[in-house]
C-alpha cells in the first residue's frame, strides 16, 4: 500500500502546483490557487517524511532533526511574512527565494560528501577511488544543482540588500567580461572534474562552489535598481531549475515538475516584465542601464531651464475644480507609506464631484503589480486602477495629473530622446492632460539616475515634500475649499 500512497501523493502535489499556478493567474481565483498549491505541498512533504524509502527499503530517520527544522522554519517564516511591511514585499520575496537557493546548494554539498566519503574502503579493494565510482550523470546533477542554487542564493541576497538600501550599486570597467570569464571557468572546471576525476576533485568541487557564490554576487551587483524586478524574477526561475536538479538527483517527480514549472513560468514572467519596459533580457543582464544612465545624467545636466513650484493651496483649488484627476503613483508613494492618505484624497475629491483614477504603469514601483498591491491595501476600488493603455486613452480628458513619487515611468525622454537609456519604454503620457503636478522630495533624478525633462515643461508644476506629508496637508486644504 505504501508503494502506492507515496507516488500518488507526489502526483497530487504536481497537479496542485499546476492548478495553483493556473488559478494564481486570474484575479478571482488567485487566493484559492495559492491555498491549493500550499495543500499539495503539505501532502508531498508529509508523505516524504513518513513513507519515503531508499533503494534498500530503509525508511528515513532523524525525525527529531527533521521536525525541529520544519517547526523552526515555519515559525520564523510565518512571523517574517506576517510582519513585513507591504512596501518591503519585493525584498521579502527575494530573501525567501535566496533561502530556496541555499537549500538546493546545501543538498548538493551533502550529497557530494556522502558519495565521496562513506564507501571509500569498499572501493579501495577494487583498486578504484570513491571519486571514480560516482556515475557521471549523478555527479553532473550534483554540481549543476549546486552551481545554480548558489548563484541564486548569492544573487538574491544582493538583490535583497540593494532593494532595502543596504547595498549600493557597484560596477567597474570590464565587469561583464570578468563575469563571462567567471562563468566560463565554472563551466570548464565542472566539465574537467566530471570527465577526468583528478586527484584534487574534492578541492575543486569547493572551488566551484566558491566561484558560483562570487558569480551570483557579481551578476547582480552592476544591475541598476530599475531592473531589479526583472532580476528577482529571473533568480526565482533559477531556483526553480535548481530544485528540478534535486528532482533528478532523487528521481523525484514532484520536485522535478514543481521546479521546472517555476523555471519556465518564471522565465516567461521575466520576459513579460522586460516587454513592459521595452528592453531585451540581454540588455538587462549586461546592465547597460548602469552605464547608459551615467551618460544620460551627464547629458541631462546641461541647461534644463527652470521649473516652477506650486503651493499647496493652489494645488487644492486646482484639484477641487477639476472634472477629472489622474493619480500616477510610483515608488515614492511606497517609501512614504502614503497609500492610505492617497485613498483619502481620492474620497475627498470624489465628494466634491471630481472623477478620480489611478494610472498604473506596469513597472511602477519596484515590481510589476507593486502599486496595485499597495493601493489594494488601502482599499482603493479595483475599477479605479487603470492599466497604462487605458490611462493614456483617458489622459486627453483629464484636468489634473498628480504624479506621486513616480519618475522614470513619466519621463518624456523615453519617447523623444533616442540617446536616453530608457528610450523606447512605453510611458504614461501625462502631458496630454491640462495640468501636471509632480510631487517629489527634491529635484534629484529617479532610481534609474536619469534627468526628467518633464519637470521643466511649461505644463508641469512641482510640489516638493514627502508624499505622505504633502497629501495629508492637501486633504485638509481640500476640506476647506
Amino acid at each position, binding site marked *: 500500500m505504501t508503494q502506492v500512497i507515496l507516488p500518488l501523493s507526489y502526483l497530487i502535489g504536481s497537479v496542485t502546483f499546476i492548478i495553483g499556478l493556473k488559478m494564481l493567474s486570474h484575479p478571482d481565483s488567485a487566493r484559492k490557487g495559492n491555498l491549493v498549491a500550499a495543500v499539495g505541498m503539505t501532502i508531498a*512533504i508529509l508523505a516524504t517524511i513518513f513513507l519515503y524509502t531508499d533503494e534498500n527499503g530503509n525508511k528515513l530517520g532523524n525525525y527529531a532533526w527533521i521536525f525541529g*527544522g520544519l517547526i523552526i522554519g515555519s515559525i520564523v*517564516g510565518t512571523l517574517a511574512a506576517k510582519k513585513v511591511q507591504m512596501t518591503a514585499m519585493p525584498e521579502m520575496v527575494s530573501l525567501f527565494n535566496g533561502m530556496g537557493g541555499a537549500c538546493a546548494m546545501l543538498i548538493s554539498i551533502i*550529497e557530494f*560528501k556522502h558519495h565521496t566519503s562513506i564507501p571509500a574502503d569498499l572501493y579501495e579493494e577494487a583498486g578504484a577511488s570513491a571519486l571514480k565510482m560516482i556515475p557521471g*550523470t549523478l555527479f553532473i546533477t550534483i554540481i549543476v544543482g549546486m552551481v545554480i542554487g548558489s548563484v541564486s542564493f548569492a544573487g538574491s541576497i544582493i538583490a535583497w540588500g540593494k532593494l532595502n538600501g543596504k547595498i549600493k550599486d557597484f560596477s567597474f570597467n570590464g565587469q561583464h567580461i570578468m563575469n563571462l570569464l567567471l562563468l566560463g571557468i565554472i563551466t570548464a572546471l565542472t566539465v574537467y572534474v566530471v570527465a577526468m576525476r583528478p586527484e584534487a576533485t574534492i578541492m575543486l568541487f569547493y572551488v566551484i562552489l566558491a566561484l558560483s557564490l562570487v558569480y551570483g554576487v557579481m551578476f547582480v551587483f552592476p544591475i541598476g535598481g530599475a531592473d531589479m524586478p526583472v532580476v528577482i524574477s529571473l533568480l526565482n526561475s533559477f531556483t526553480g531549475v535548481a530544485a528540478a536538479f534535486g528532482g533528478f538527483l532523487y*528521481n523525484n517527480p514532484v520536485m522535478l515538475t514543481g521546479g521546472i514549472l517555476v523555471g519556465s513560468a518564471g522565465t516567461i514572467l521575466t520576459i513579460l516584465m522586460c516587454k513592459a519596459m521595452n528592453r531585451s533580457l540581454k540588455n538587462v543582464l549586461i546592465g547597460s542601464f548602469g552605464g547608459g544612465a551615467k551618460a544620460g545624467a551627464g547629458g541631462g545636466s546641461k541647461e534644463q531651464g527652470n521649473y516652477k513650484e506650486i503651493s499647496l493651496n493652489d494645488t487644492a483649488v486646482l484639484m477641487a475644480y477639476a472634472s477629472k484627476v489622474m493619480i500616477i503613483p510610483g515608488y515614492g508613494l511606497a517609501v512614504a507609506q502614503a497609500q492610505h492618505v492617497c485613498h483619502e484624497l481620492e474620497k475627498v475629491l470624489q465628494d466634491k464631484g471630481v472623477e478620480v483614477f489611478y494610472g498604473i504603469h506596469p513597472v511602477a514601483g519596484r515590481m510589476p503589480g507593486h502599486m*496595485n498591491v499597495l493601493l489594494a491595501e488601502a482599499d482603493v476600488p479595483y475599477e479605479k486602477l487603470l*492599466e497604462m493603455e487605458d490611462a493614456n486613452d483617458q489622459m486627453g480628458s483629464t484636468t489634473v495629473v498628480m504624479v506621486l513619487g513616480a519618475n522614470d515611468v513619466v519621463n518624456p525622454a523615453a519617447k523623444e530622446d533616442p540617446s536616453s537609456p530608457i528610450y523606447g519604454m512605453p510611458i504614461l503620457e501625462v502631458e496630454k492632460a491640462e495640468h501636471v503636478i509632480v510631487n517629489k522630495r527634491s529635484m534629484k533624478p529617479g532610481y534609474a539616475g536619469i534627468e526628467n525633462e518633464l519637470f521643466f515643461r511649461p505644463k508641469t508644476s512641482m510640489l516638493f515634500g514627502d508624499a505622505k506629508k504633502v497629501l495629508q496637508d492637501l486633504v485638509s486644504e481640500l476640506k476647506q475649499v
Partner: protein
Amino acid sequence: MDFITNLFSDPATYRLLTIVILSIFLGIEVISRVPSVLHTPLMSGANAIHGVVIIGAIIVMGQAHSDDYLALILGFLSVVLGTLNVVGGFVVTDRMLEMFDKKKKKAP
C-alpha cells in the same frame, strides 16, 4: 558523452527528461496570459512552489548517519531554509492576495 547517452538509454532518466520537457511547455502555457496586476503575487506564489526543494532536504536529513554531525548540521540547516522558503512564500502570497479579497467584498 555517457551523460547524454544515459539521458536517452536509461528508462528512468528518460522518463524524467520527458517530464522536464512537458513541464516547460506547461509552465509557459499556464503563465502566458496574466494581468500585470497579478505579476507580483504570481512571482511570489511561484517562489513558494520552488520551495518543493524542501523534499530533497528532508530526504538528505533523514538519510544522514546519526554520528555524522557535519551532515546532520548541514541537513538541518537546509530543512530550515527550505521551510522558510515554502511557509514564508505561501504566507506572503496569501497576504498580498487577501487585499484583493477585501476590496472585492466591499465593492458590491
